[in-house]
């Protein structure tokens, strides 16, 4: 009897889940594609019709094909080099060949990769600064009062405002004959850092300041040292808010990055969009739309990854995270 009831309720739950979890989202996406198709055909630009879903799909295929062609070319390039070196070495055993890097045009997927590591570098640097500073601010009201105006001043600044300054500073200070990073990468990364560190900083500070009074009393009664106090009581208590901040920061970082790459000419998705815009062929709008969807999708994936980290790090497993 009981098992029948639980089975029935289980089935109900499963069907409720498939309606809410699968059917409704699919329905939403289908409606969106339909509206897009209908709407797109009515918008005319100097580069032709606004790209509808079909055009975008075609452009996606062509981008995939370009990527594959480029890979084949690169492979051939390296094989040719090796053959040539082997030939020379057969004649002259003392000859040590140099393998030169393939310098073909980066494909859409190379650009995605560039964007990803640029955003992660910028976000990583921002976290390295924001978390410790946030903890300090949260622990000490005086530090908070001193830093708060500065934080509030810089928090709303757009990446486009920072970018010229960052560009000039990077070109002036990063001078090297054999640079490890390209300047466009550094410029984009620092811009991302400057714009995305604030949510982590503020949320960490709030989390640290909101440690339960009772837990602070426990720490006092135990006479915990400063380091133990911070490691065992303050940081664990602040973790939920810290992750809220980190997720907001990563979202901002990804948005800022595209703008930064456009202007800094970092070979990522931002540059892809800019180049296609400048190119102005009949395919350009479709390709830009592919990039738009890809940017959205990657942003979503980045948030899911952070959510997974948050679930892993959170001590309160009953908390609903979404």
């Amino acid at each position: 009897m009981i098992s029948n009831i639980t089975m029935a309720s289980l089935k109900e739950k499963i069907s409720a889940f498939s309606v809410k979890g699968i059917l409704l989202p699919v329905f939403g996406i289908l409606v969106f594609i339909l509206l897009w198709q209908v709407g797109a055909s009515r918008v005319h630009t100097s580069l032709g019709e606004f790209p509808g879903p079909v055009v975008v799909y075609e452009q996606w295929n062509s981008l995939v094909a370009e990527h594959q062609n480029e890979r084949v070319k690169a492979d051939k390039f390296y094989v040719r080099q090796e053959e040539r070196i082997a030939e020379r070495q057969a004649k002259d055993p003392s000859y040590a060949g140099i393998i030169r890097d393939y310098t073909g045009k980066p494909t859409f997927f190379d650009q995605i990769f560039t964007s990803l590591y640029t955003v992660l570098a910028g976000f990583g640097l921002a976290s390295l600064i924001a978390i410790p500073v946030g903890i300090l601010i949260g622990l000490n009201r005086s530090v908070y009062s001193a830093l708060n105006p500065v934080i509030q001043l810089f928090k709303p600044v757009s990446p486009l405002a920072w970018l010229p300054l960052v560009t000039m500073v990077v070109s002036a200070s990063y001078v090297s004959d054999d640079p490890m990073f390209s300047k466009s990468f550094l410029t984009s990364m620092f811009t991302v850092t400057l714009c995305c560190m604030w949510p982590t900083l503020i949320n960490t500070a709030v989390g640290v300041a909101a440690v339960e009074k009772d837990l602070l009393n426990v720490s006092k009664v135990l006479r915990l040292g400063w380091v133990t106090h911070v490691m065992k009581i303050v940081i664990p208590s602040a973790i939920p808010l810290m992750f809220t901040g980190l997720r907001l920061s990563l979202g901002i970082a990804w948005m800022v990055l595209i703008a930064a790459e456009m202007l800094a000419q970092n070979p990522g998705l931002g540059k892809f969009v800019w180049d296609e815009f400048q190119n102005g062929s009949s395919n350009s709008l479709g390709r830009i739309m592919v990039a738009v969807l890809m940017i959205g999708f990657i942003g979503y994936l980045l948030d899911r990854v952070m959510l997974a980290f948050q679930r892993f790090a959170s001590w309160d497993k009953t908390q609903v995270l979404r």
Partner: protein
Amino acid sequence: MTTHLDISHVSIEFPTPKGPFKALDNVSLKIQKGEFVSLIGHSGCGKSTVLNIVAGLYDATEGGILLDGREVKGPGPERAVVFQNHSLLPWLTSYQNVELAVKQVFRKTKSKKEMHDWIMHNLELVHMTHAADKRPDEISGGMKQRVGIARALAMEPSVLLMDEPFGALDALTRAHLQDSLMEIQKDLNNTVIMITHDVDEAVLLSDRIVMMTNGPAATVGEILHVDLERPRERLALANDPRYVDYRTQVLTFLYEKQRKVEPIQPAVKTKKTAINAKVANA
């Protein structure tokens, strides 16, 4: 018998926008080693303030606390506190919660193995070894309070301070924990100050019951010596005329001599905000 803990002429004032508010006035109490003392009084009378001053979480405006003849300043593990709402760290297991205290107190005097044994011994005392690896949100309220007691006991305190330790528990769990506490007390013979608003709890557990007058400027009203031999059995005592008499004496004090005047005067309100303000500054 010499005095172990001497609460000597303690007064405390909290600053408020309307000028200083005197919460406690000239509270004096001498407690001997191994004595179990309850503080009872209406809510808002400053019982918790007394405990917090002994714990070192508040500083007395006048007077002070002497432990074995030496003045104590600031909190410390020799005056361990069992908090009303357990105050376990939610991200640590029961074992780790006790471990944090043990490591802090004994890291120089005990080896790793000894510390482990000591943690397990204390969890054993409160019958919580089975949940050593459970986090607070996985165990019941009564179990959390047991772990809280284990953590306090594990510090081997000179004085154990309990702030309404069973106040948040249901009646059955409370009775169960009171029995456990009496059992532990029989073995360890700790010096205990317990705050309570439960008359039965006070009579059952205490050697002395300190009844406090209503605030503001609360102080010690009467002190009742509970001369019931130990071990005490709650069922046997329920009809014992001496028990009933002690109970009546406390009730008389609380409900006749120190009847709580309702509605609460605005002064009580300002006191609450004063405490909050102090906490915010701390």
